[in-house]
């Protein structure tokens, strides 16, 4: 049984300009001990999926489909059960640790708060646990008494990770956890996340626009475009040998140093990602696709079988045509 199982999820925001379908039918499964990477550009709906899964969407938003955590239907949970599941069943490492921490509370108290609220320990026990958690994320326990402003960006992100692990969740969702960090610190934080995930056997959903980061830490990748998943499969093959033209363009945006094909040859796509309220007909990628042909504007492709453990939503895939790999 998957730790997280999302089937045919749609999330439609209610706005003054009319309904905006941000997520348009997404299936995701994360197994125990597995890291699934979700990649896509701004506005593709990747953060909306997180909000949909955690039921954190604004009122009047229409959510359909099923979300199951360890087989339990999240959509049907009563508020009390939902509150219990959030953080102890699934927790989130948010982007921008600098804004997610309370500036006027010591970090030890912030970590302990979740432990106490979920009834896992009394205040004293929670402080001990907070110290142990800090050590686990590579900070000395004496930093418990620090305020957030006394920590660097990387250290704050480590505190966020400690908080996410406080109630021993089965699933950790990491939403752009390293975007605001410097390159060197980013590598350290990624390494820490990966080590903890392995050590604790966590299921993890890792979300970022940076495909190169995902390839490094994830077992499987799902690529999103305009509210849908367009390609899914084991991470290295998806990155190295993409089946969908969009994945190919995205992986071309993260050149391998030393690879002659990228030298003095930046590659990108014409145009811009579509606005969620105004998605093109047929395959939503066709206006930007270098390989589009006459059927693309009318047929919205399903995810077709594209090799062992892989799927891709491109009409070229069932025709057996290979997407050229070179940028």
């Amino acid at each position: 049984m998957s730790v997280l199982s999302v089937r045919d999820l749609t999330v439609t925001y209610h706005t003054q300009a009319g309904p905006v379908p941000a997520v348009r039918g997404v299936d995701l499964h994360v197994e125990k001990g597995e890291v699934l990477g979700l990649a896509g550009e701004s506005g593709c709906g990747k953060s909306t999926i997180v909000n949909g899964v955690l039921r954190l969407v604004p009122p009047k938003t229409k959510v359909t489909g099923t979300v199951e955590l360890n087989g339990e239907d999240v959509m049907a949970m009563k508020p009390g059960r939902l509150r219990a599941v959030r953080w102890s069943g699934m927790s989130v490492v948010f982007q921008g640790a600098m804004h997610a921490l309370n500036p006027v509370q010591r970090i030890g108290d912030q970590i302990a708060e979740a432990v106490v609220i979920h009834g896992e320990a009394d205040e004293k026990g929670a402080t001990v646990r907070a110290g142990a958690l800090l050590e686990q994320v590579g900070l000395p326990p004496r930093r418990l008494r620090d305020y957030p402003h006394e920590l660097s960006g990387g250290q704050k992100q480590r505190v966020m990770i400690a908080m996410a692990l406080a109630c021993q969740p089965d699933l950790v969702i990491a939403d752009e956890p390293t975007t605001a960090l410097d390159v060197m610190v980013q590598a350290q934080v990624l390494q820490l996340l990966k080590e903890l995930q392995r050590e604790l056997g966590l299921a993890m959903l890792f979300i970022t626009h940076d495909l190169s980061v995902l390839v490094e830490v994830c077992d499987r990748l799902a690529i999103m475009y305009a509210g849908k998943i367009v390609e899914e499969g084991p991470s290295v093959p998806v990155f190295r040998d993409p089946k969908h033209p969009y994945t190919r363009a995205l992986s071309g945006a993260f050149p391998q140093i030393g690879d002659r094909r990228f030298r003095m040859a930046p590659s990108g796509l014409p145009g811009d990602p579509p606005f969620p309220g105004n998605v093109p007909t047929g395959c939503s990628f066709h206006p930007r696709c270098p390989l589009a042909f006459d059927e693309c504007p009318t047929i919205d492709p399903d995810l077709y079988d594209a090799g062992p453990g892989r799927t891709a939503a491109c009409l070229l895939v069932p025709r057996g045509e290979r997407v050229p790999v070179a940028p």
Partner: protein
Amino acid sequence: MPTVSPSRPDVPEPVLAVRDLHVRFAGRVGLWQGLRGVKAPDARAVDGVNLELYPGEVLALAGESGCGKTTLARTIMGLERPRSGDISFEGKPLGRSTRVLREYRRRVQMVFQDPTAALNPRQTIYESIAEGLRVHGITRSSAGESEEQLVARALSRAGMRPPERFFLNYPHELSGGQRQRVVIAGALVLDPEIIVADEPVSSLDASVRGEILKLLLGLRNDLNIAMLVVTHDLGLAWTIADRVAVMYLGRIVEIGPAESVLTNPIHPYTKALLEVVPEAGGIDRPFLAGEPPDPTSIPPGCRFNPRCPAVASGAAAGAGVLAACQEQDLGLQELRPDHFAACHLMSHEAGFASAPPPPPAKA
């Protein structure tokens, strides 16, 4: 004084040369300490930089946040005042003459990281681009083109075609990529020799980045504009740069042809920076520990020695240069053709008696 210029005679004069540049920011202390008269040390953001930019070349300036790369770019633009050192443009020092500076500010243009912040939200695209012309009192080009023609040509060169369609748009009506094109058009309209671009694509979506980089590379190829591109992304440097300079704590520690620096780095810091570039297939490799260093307390000796893997592993001690690493500040040395690095160990291994002295700091 070590020279950073290539030794080949066929190389043209640099269009821009920076000599022994030092930029400091006043240190800050808390209220209590301030009242007690405690003085904080200055942040030595740029601490002795020599740099040359040749006509039509793309030079990438890389390093961690806080290494001084943005301060260096801003100082070159005249947005920060250097403590000491010279900047010369086309062989002539800039000095303080208003007329010279005015001309310089027309011919050296900057492209900022975030186009949304760089454009005035209440100005139309036409106004945003024409503003540069008006500031410099240009009503017609030397070829007799009107302001409107100049704006149209700049927009179309930046890939906004047909340009007239965008004249009356406001920034919020454009996508991120289009906004960055408008910012680039604003630089192009003044017909610059140099563009200084500070992280020109890091705020853009991945699929849009390539097109903007293509545009910048095209400007270099078609108009022979020299570019200084500040970036933390070495993959980007690999895609567009002719030369790469790596900065650490206010100083350039390695500079050379992009292929040589990126595929065969000399300095241990450059090696560490390349180590953190994400790789397909796992993250289990050693990274440099610790936080970005503090420019208010630059360590004595080689400024990288407290974090240097060659010092930690004993390689420096084994070669007998450990004392130099810890006590002797140093400058760049040409260890391969056109490829310079500031490292006691690597100078020693290349057969030099010692590394050269650092660039002089004037009070």
